[in-house]
């Protein structure tokens, strides 16, 4: 096993090009657990937590968040996404939020990654780079299965990008505590009033992050009718129907954190609440 601390991105890309088996270490909140328990002993590790090029948050029209940005910073700094801030606050604990990065969530691609439903609902773009060049992947095409994605072995996730979608968005998550919880089920809802677009995405309810397309179309219809620019709460029955459609998009399983039936139930509840909440937001 060898460990190298990358000074800059070029350094990291060079190491990956030379040995595509190299494992990248960012906040360590996933990889170090594997190493501590002896489940994974990578022959070669490159630490990228000191790479400044991965730590920027840029806002000029669109938003670009470097892969090395921690959840503590996503909470404190403006990324034009209320849902991302809400999701970040539910990640682990202060210790975990100080270490864990959005790029780690993206590269690990756990269906329970808290930032991922938000990225999906925002229609974010994942930016990856290798010595061969840069590639931009729509989030909808990023994950291919649990902890699987289209990143090539020599690529580094460098950033996530999204368009500011206004304030009508939220993130919800169910677990056994407010802190230190891996989602039993989670949901992100974005109502982009300016672009007349609704995004709904589910976490921990299938092999990948799932978009609830029927629920999106249904909500789209409601806002067409109520007016996209008005802060109007869809009525209770519309919220309930929306929740049912959200739950219908899930492909959950029974596992140690909850049953499939429970996940469908909480998705229906969260969906209804999310639409009611977001309807009143600008």
């Amino acid at each position, binding site marked *: *096993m*060898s460990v190298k601390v990358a000074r800059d991105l070029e350094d990291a890309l060079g190491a990956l090009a030379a040995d595509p088996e190299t494992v990248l270490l960012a906040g*360590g909140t996933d990889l170090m657990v594997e190493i*501590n328990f002896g489940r994974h002993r990578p022959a070669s*590790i490159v*630490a990228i937590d000191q790479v400044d090029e991965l730590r920027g948050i840029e806002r000029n029209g669109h938003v670009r968040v470097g892969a090395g940005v921690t959840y503590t910073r996503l909470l404190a700094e403006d990324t034009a996404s209320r849902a991302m801030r809400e999701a970040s606050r539910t990640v682990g*604990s*202060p*210790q975990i939020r100080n270490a864990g990065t959005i790029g780690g969530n993206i590269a690990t691609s756990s269906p329970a990654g808290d930032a991922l439903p938000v990225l999906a609902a925002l229609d974010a773009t994942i930016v990856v780079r290798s010595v061969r060049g840069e590639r931009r992947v729509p989030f909808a095409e990023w994950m291919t299965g649990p902890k699987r994605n289209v990143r090539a072995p020599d690529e580094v996730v460098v950033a996530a990008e999204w368009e500011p979608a206004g304030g009508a968005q939220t993130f919800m998550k169910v677990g056994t505590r407010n802190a230190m919880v891996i989602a039993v089920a989670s949901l992100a809802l974005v109502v982009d009033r300016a672009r007349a677009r609704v995004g709904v995405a589910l976490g921990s309810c299938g092999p990948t992050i799932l978009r609830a397309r029927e629920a999106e179309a249904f909500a789209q219809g409601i806002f067409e009718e109520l007016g996209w620019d008005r802060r109007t709460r869809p009525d209770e029955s519309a919220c309930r129907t929306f929740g049912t459609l959200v739950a219908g998009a899930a492909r959950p399983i029974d596992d140690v954190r909850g049953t499939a039936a429970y996940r469908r139930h909480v998705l229906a509840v969260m969906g209804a609440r999310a639409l009611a909440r977001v309807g009143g937001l600008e």
Partner: protein
Amino acid sequence: MSGDALTALRLRVNGVERQTAVPDHESLLTTLRERLGLPGSKNACEQGECGSCSVLLDGELVCSCLVLSAAAQDREVVTVEALGEGDTLHPVQRAFVDAGAVQCGFCTPGLIVSAYALLRANPEPSQLEVREALSGNLCRCTGYGKILEAVQRASREMYRR
């Protein structure tokens, strides 16, 4: 672990430059406890769940079990041993004693470091802010009531009001 190469490691720990050699898979927690003579940070879950190993790394509160030592070259570490001087306790430590916030004591160093990090950034935290700040530290004895009280006590003591 056999087959692991040793990496020369230089760290600044509690204000002092320290040098040692570490196996490539070793966590900062193990390095602190077993190579640098600093057993204050406790080893329990080794997965970032319990907070017993909390330290400040370049000023930020982290679980030292989730830091790879060989990747922490030249970083600055502050452990619970840096709080207090000799027999004189730090106000956070004093408050834990006075409030009766210590039972078995295993989680205490981690909680002290987390509380210290909180009070440094937020001198007058609300009860909810204290709860959120300590949410990554587990205690299986106290039920947390006395711990929350200790942090409020330390806040009053440190900032005299």
